[in-house]
């Protein structure tokens, strides 16, 4: 496959950036999107140019490191798929593909396609944990959990914190991420003691980090590689309402 890619190039956090066009020739349709960038980077290095910086780690769709907006869609055109699991066969020979970093004030660009997602860590630090005695693993039947709740909590827990929801949101809001964490812990018996303070503190941390507000537009769930449902945001709102009424 011969394609053209237009990539956001930005040499550093404070530098200005622009879209730069590159020809990529002879790419296998079975190559992943990241492998295509690897091939392009080899050419750039051989020519003495600066390779394109991008985040990646497991390349198995479970770590949440890769983060590219491809043709305006976070993680590209394939549903419920991270960029690393997207293959070039989803594109046509001769396509011009635009590649940009996540765009959000809370996710400043470090270089090219790499953004700083520590704002998510701040949200987690504010309440994305439980305080329980650790030690040896408890007996499996020590704290009974209904199967329905366990499944729903697991669905929310599949969030890999990649930030695609923020990238896609017209308001630059991280509500789906926060809602997933709230549901994941709030559905479990171990998450109950801090349920009220968790939702208040995590929302405060989210506002402080400079994320926008949620308007239920639903863009986040469409691009989410793990298909986190939008209904979790309703759960977050409900938890928040109950928490502030108890204050």
């Amino acid at each position, binding site marked *: 496959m011969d394609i053209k890619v*237009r990539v*956001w190039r930005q040499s550093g956090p404070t530098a200005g950036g622009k*879209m730069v066009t590159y020809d990529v020739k002879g790419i296998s349709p079975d190559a992943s999107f990241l492998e295509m960038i690897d091939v392009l980077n080899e050419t750039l290095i051989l020519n003495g140019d600066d390779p394109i910086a991008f985040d990646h780690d497991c390349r198995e769709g479970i770590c949440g490191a890769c983060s590219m*907006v491809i*043709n*305006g*869609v976070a993680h590209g055109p394939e549903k419920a798929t991270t960029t690393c699991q997207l293959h070039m066969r989803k594109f046509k020979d001769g396509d011009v593909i*635009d590649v*940009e970093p996540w*765009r*959000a*004030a*809370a996710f400043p660009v470090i270089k090219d396609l790499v953004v700083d997602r520590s704002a998510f860590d701040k949200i987690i630090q504010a309440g994305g944990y439980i305080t329980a005695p650790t030690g040896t693993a408890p007996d499996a039947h020590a704290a009974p959990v209904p199967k329905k709740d366990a499944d729903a909590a697991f669905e929310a827990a599949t969030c890999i914190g990649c930030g695609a929801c923020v990238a*896609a949101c*017209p*308001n*630059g*809001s991280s509500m789906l991420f926060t809602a997933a964490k709230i549901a994941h812990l709030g559905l479990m018996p171990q998450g109950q003691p801090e349920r009220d303070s968790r939702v208040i503190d995590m929302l405060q941390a989210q506002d402080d980090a*400079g*994320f*926008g*507000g949620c*308007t*239920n*537009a*639903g*863009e986040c769930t*469409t691009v989410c590689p793990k298909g986190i*449902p*939008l*209904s*979790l*945001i*309703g*759960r977050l*709102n*409900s938890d928040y*309402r109950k928490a502030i009424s108890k204050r």
Partner: protein
Amino acid sequence: MAVSGALLVLFLFAHAAGNLKIFVGETDFDHYAEWLRDLGTPLLPHGWFLWLQRIGLLAGIGLHIWAATALTIRAKKARPVKYAHRPKIQGSYAARTMRWGGVIIVLFVIYHILDLTTGTFNPAGGDVDPSARVIAGFAPDRWYVTLFYTLAVVSVGFHLRHGIWSAFRTLGQQTTKGERRAKAVALVLSVVLVAMYLSVPFAVLTGLVG
């Protein structure tokens, strides 16, 4: 957004129901307008109910616009650098047009009050004969007014289709089944409201009333 919006939706339905009285008869419609001023008497002096309602509505509209402006400003700040390539977002047309739709609705409400309440653009009927003003207002030779009303009412419909559903979600609606129901309720209420509002101008335009 959700609470002030719910207040405004309740008003919209009460207002639309009142409008339909014109199909019962023009004098009935005039009596209804008079009743609105008499409501609450003798506890309230004549006309006070209407003013209290107007104050309540203005507060609701004020809160709604304040919340929408705050959200818009936050959204702009949250994404200072725009995407170079941004296809039409995948959400509904209604969700995408909430902000500009809201601005159009505000402009329409201002025109609507000058047109049918104060009579600045449409003095027919004076203060004593509201049905005559409605009939003169949507007369066939003022077709452009009817066209503008139609566009505005349809934009209210779109605004409510996302707005009603979104309000349920903001107030804590959280099941997938409930989401389908809330979306269906929003769609049905929006369509019914648009039909209720458009029935009067089109009845006047086609000569069914008047």
